[in-house]
């Protein structure tokens, strides 16, 4: 059985390193993009099974990413948003744009693995 492709869009290298490690250990084929430009370049050539994205990223925010995936790519790829604590307004906006789930920082890698599995099982 082939590994599920997961796009991790996170500009914080510290958090990204930990999540990358845990998601790979969890059996996912993880691609990491550190900013919006890299995300767009990746999505132009690859269709991941799920996207985990920070809201605030250079060049192309998590909000723009959701809008891009839903409206321009017309894709229903599950998107999990990583948000800062106290950023509830952004989370609501993200859901309105089509995000499937969110997880607050500081992110628990174990919790993220559960949420990723749950979203993939839904599909």
């Amino acid at each position, binding site marked *: 059985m082939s590994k599920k492709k997961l796009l991790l869009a996170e*500009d*914080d*290298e*510290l*958090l990204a*390193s*930990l999540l990358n*490690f*845990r998601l790979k*250990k969890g059996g996912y084929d993880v691609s990491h993009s550190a900013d919006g430009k890299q995300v767009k370049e990746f999505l132009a050539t690859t269709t991941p099974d799920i996207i985990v994205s920070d809201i*605030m990223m250079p060049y192309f925010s998590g909000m723009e990413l959701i809008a891009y995936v839903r409206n321009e790519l017309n894709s229903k790829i599950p998107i999990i948003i990583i948000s*800062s604590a106290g950023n509830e307004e952004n989370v609501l906006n993200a859901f309105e744009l089509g995000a499937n789930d969110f997880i607050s*920082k*500081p*992110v*628990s*890698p*174990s919790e993220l693995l559960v949420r990723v599995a749950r979203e993939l099982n839904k599909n």
Partner: protein
Amino acid sequence: MKPKNLLFQLSHLESNLNDFSFEKLSVEDADQLKQSFLSFKRNLLEKISPSNAENQNIPSQILKKTLQSFEKSAIAQDSSISDLDMDMYDAIISHYKSYGAVLKSLKIESAMKKDNHSTLIFNKSDSPGADSLHTIDLNPILQDCMGEIDLLTQLVGLYERNGLEFIGAAKIHLQTHDFKQLGLAAHKVKAGLAMMKTNSLHSIILQIESTCNGDKDLKHLQFLCDCFIMEFPIVRKSLKEALAGLNKNKG
């Protein structure tokens, strides 16, 4: 200590408060203010509790505790209050309120709420001593790393780099008054600081980000960045010690 001497102390304090401008409060100014407050409080305590004045050799820690509990005890002990010259008491309260308003407008009270912050602000030691280090428990993060100490070491390295990058970026953005970029720089390191449970730095960064998104008070931001710069080496050393401890246990 006679009331007129207390009033002299108050005048001195007032003079200090009037001497700095809203835009120019430095760490040194804040230190001077604190010293004035402490001096005033000590003398006021002597006035309220004469027995303390008689004993000039009180150990400093006991005196400090007494000073910290002064407000509570002053309210709780009716007999102490009854000894006060009420006119002077009213004058003190009035002055205290006016200082409170000044300090509130400077917005430094939130940074000084916690003891670790005031210690950080007024401890000018460049090289932190062992007793000033924080206790950081890296075990939860090591668990997140599934026991991979190499990954944890890598994360600590990234943490240090991010902190240094922030300090560099903050200096530039403060000079150029680029609050948006300063806020973004703070946001970028925020998650890592929380992740490594380095709460003192995380708390400062939250305030920097909040101020950048709010009233963009340059003086307050400079103050907070100075706090970060002073606190960072202490946290970095604490992290290294915690990591060394884990490596030792593993070995």
